[in-house]
């Protein structure tokens, strides 16, 4: 659009961006060529005409609209020359009008050419896997003033809050239109979205809502793979091998204690702890098998720590069969205990030991389990429980631990002498409180 004003020509470049939002760039005034006067450039019109047509050519394309905002000899003459050069362009007069304001208002009233969505997360049924989705806000054709209410749920988020991102969909690719955030407590909430103009959505109904300065790709990357309900407790099961050297058994008890304390600190009021000990099978002639001991089951962490202290005082360390330990019996005991429980809780089984499990039948130098328990099958059964994680703190470093420990500790495997307890706790999933979900959940 060309404005023919008192000072000269003004070019308004109008277009739509990738998100379908109308945009307008106003170029600086191009002054008239010399003084025009009441009757224009009547004395010597040719140079002025050429100059104005050069200005027209410099706009790059033909104008669709010519608007005169200052009537007079010069603008009339210039309009005549321009209409002669662009007979297809519409022309009109709006004396004294503020074209910039008029355009802004027109663009705001423009109906949407693309639909707008709010970015949310959904939970896949069963697995709890978190997936991005778009919650519809405004369909194509929506106009300024349209409003919509959006009920949603949110979890713990980063301190910057839950991100509310409005996107426009062009094919399969969303264009981010706006990004706001509000620090909200976990729970159900509702916001109201109002279309103020193409590309402008006002969100209301949430306190503390402010522009979000976080990097969009960081926000996307912050979303965990699976959702864990913040309200459900975690169950930490520590299974400790009690055969071997006394100081090694002492180290194992230390690590179990550290892990219980770490998890209890992370999950106040939401941690249950079970304690089991297991030793070596007895293969001596007619020897009696010592069973796996369940010292505590799903108990308060403080109570379990007391049990660990008592165990330390009462424990008699026996060397036992040196090539294996009752890992498979312990797994069977754990599954038996969990079988009586309600599902849904996060369960972390931590094995602290050194001797590998016994095979169910003669297939290695390690003698078979007298009860033919199959540790691989039992481990798989444990791991297939929803929210179950299995980790091993082994007497030896991972590269010397052996294939059995490598398998059992595939989610988390650490060396007894150098384990990083906080990191190991995170690997075991004992950080449900720390799961940050920075988008609204639907």
């Amino acid at each position, binding site marked *: 659009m060309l404005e023919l004003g008192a000072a000269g020509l003004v070019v308004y470049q109008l277009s739509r961006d990738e998100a379908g939002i109308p945009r307008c760039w106003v170029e600086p005034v191009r002054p008239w060529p010399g003084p025009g006067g009441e009757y224009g450039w009547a004395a010597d019109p040719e140079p002025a005409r050429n100059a104005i047509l050069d200005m027209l050519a410099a706009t790059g394309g033909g104008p669709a609209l010519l608007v005169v905002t200052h009537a007079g000899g010069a603008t009339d003459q210039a309009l005549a020359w321009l209409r002669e050069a662009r007979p297809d362009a519409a022309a009109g007069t709006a004396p004294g009008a503020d074209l910039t304001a008029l355009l802004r208002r027109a663009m705001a009233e423009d109906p949407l050419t693309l639909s707008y969505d709010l970015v949310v997360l959904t939970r896949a049924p069963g697995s709890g896997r978190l997936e991005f989705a778009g919650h519809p806000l405004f369909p194509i054709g929506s106009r300024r003033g349209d409003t919509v209410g959006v009920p949603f749920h949110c979890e713990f988020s980063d301190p910057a809050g839950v991100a509310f991102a409005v996107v426009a969909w062009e094919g399969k690719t969303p264009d981010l239109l706006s990004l706001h955030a509000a620090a909200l407590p976990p729970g159900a909430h509702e916001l109201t979205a109002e279309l103020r103009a193409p590309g402008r959505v006002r969100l209301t109904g949430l306190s503390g809502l402010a522009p979000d300065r976080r990097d969009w790709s960081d926000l996307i990357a912050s979303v965990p793979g699976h959702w864990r309900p913040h309200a459900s407790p975690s169950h930490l099961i520590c299974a400790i091998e009690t055969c071997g050297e006394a100081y090694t058994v002492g180290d194992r008890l230390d690590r179990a204690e550290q892990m219980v304390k770490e998890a209890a600190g992370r999950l106040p009021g939401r941690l249950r702890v079970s304690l089991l000990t297991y030793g070596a099978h007895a293969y001596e002639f007619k020897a009696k098998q010592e069973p796996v001991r369940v010292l505590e089951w799903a108990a308060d962490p403080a109570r379990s720590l007391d049990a660990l202290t008592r165990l330390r005082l009462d424990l008699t360390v026996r060397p036992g069969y040196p090539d294996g330990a009752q890992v498979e019996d312990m797994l069977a005991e754990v599954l038996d205990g969990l079988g009586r429980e309600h599902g849904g809780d996060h369960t972390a089984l931590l094995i602290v030991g050194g001797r590998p499990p016994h095979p169910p039948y003669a297939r290695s130098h390690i003698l078979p389990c007298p009860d*033919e328990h199959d540790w691989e099958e039992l481990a798989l059964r444990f791991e297939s429980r929803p929210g179950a994680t299995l980790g091993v703190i082994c007497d030896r470093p991972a590269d010397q631990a052996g294939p059995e420990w490598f398998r059992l500790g595939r989610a988390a495997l650490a060396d007894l002498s150098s384990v990083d307890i906080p990191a190991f706790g995170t690997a075991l999933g004992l950080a449900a409180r720390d799961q940050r979900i920075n988008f609204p959940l639907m």
Partner: protein
Amino acid sequence: MSEQEDSDHIAMWGAPGSGKTTLLAALSFALLQRRGPWRLVGTDPASIEILRDKSAALARREFPPATIDIERFRWLLLGDPVQLQKRFAGRFNGKARTMPAPRVGLNLIDPPGGVYTDKERPADHAKLLENLQRSRGIVYLFDPIREFEDGNAFEYLHGALIQLASRMLAEDAPSDGRLPHYLAVCITKFDDRRVLETAEKLNLVTTDPDDPHGFPAVDDENAQTLFHNLCDISASGSAEFVMGALEQYFRPDRIKFFVTSSIGFYLKPGTRGFNPRDYQNMVRKPQDGTNGREPSTEFEIRGQARPINVREPVTWLAEQIYADQLKPGNGR
């Protein structure tokens, strides 16, 4: 010991740690368990006592410890003349003949490692060769597990055989240039999972229908096949030459192979049948301070020792020697 008894003896020979002492104890055990024409006795109180001690250890499910200077002890296989005369009736040409109780000496050669080379311990080496030279039959123990781990059977055997042959053939060379001994090659540790699995893969495992426990067994005629295959997987790869060395130095008709186990398979107390899922009878001893990092090297027997095929190689040798004694012109 008379000259005759001393010369008609069997030498038990094998690399250090190949299980000669345990085999001796198991042999005594096995000869007592099953009534047959042969029994094992000591030639003097010390030999009687040591045999009793070794057998008692086995009965306590312990591996009998090796004894220093075991070579100085002597045992005798005493044959029942009545039973043997029935078996060897053909040798007497149908004539009734009163025979004294057959006697075959049994010595255990337990040299420390490396003795077959005369460089470091020439006296021990000379004693070994002398013992082998004087014997008529040899029980040669081939331990496939040790061979699998160390792979020194050929090195051990070959050096001694070269020197033995050079001594004997120089003195009284037989026409075919081979040693005159009967040789019972015992493939030991059949109870070990790796040996049993190798035999199973080769389809060599059978079960004696008369065996109340149904233990796996390898017939003697298939033992050589198992021996070949076990040699193929030795650590050094040189075990395959063992067979060649044996055939080079001994007459093929005087070699026989046996698959043996001094302790047999584990049988859970209260059960009678072999359990293919749980049969390992050797168990590492619990030991303070090992923690699995430095495994104990001491083992014990998990259940009752049930020797497999340990009597057969010795009685086969004894009967070959006895048969030779009966040959006309032998003068014995």
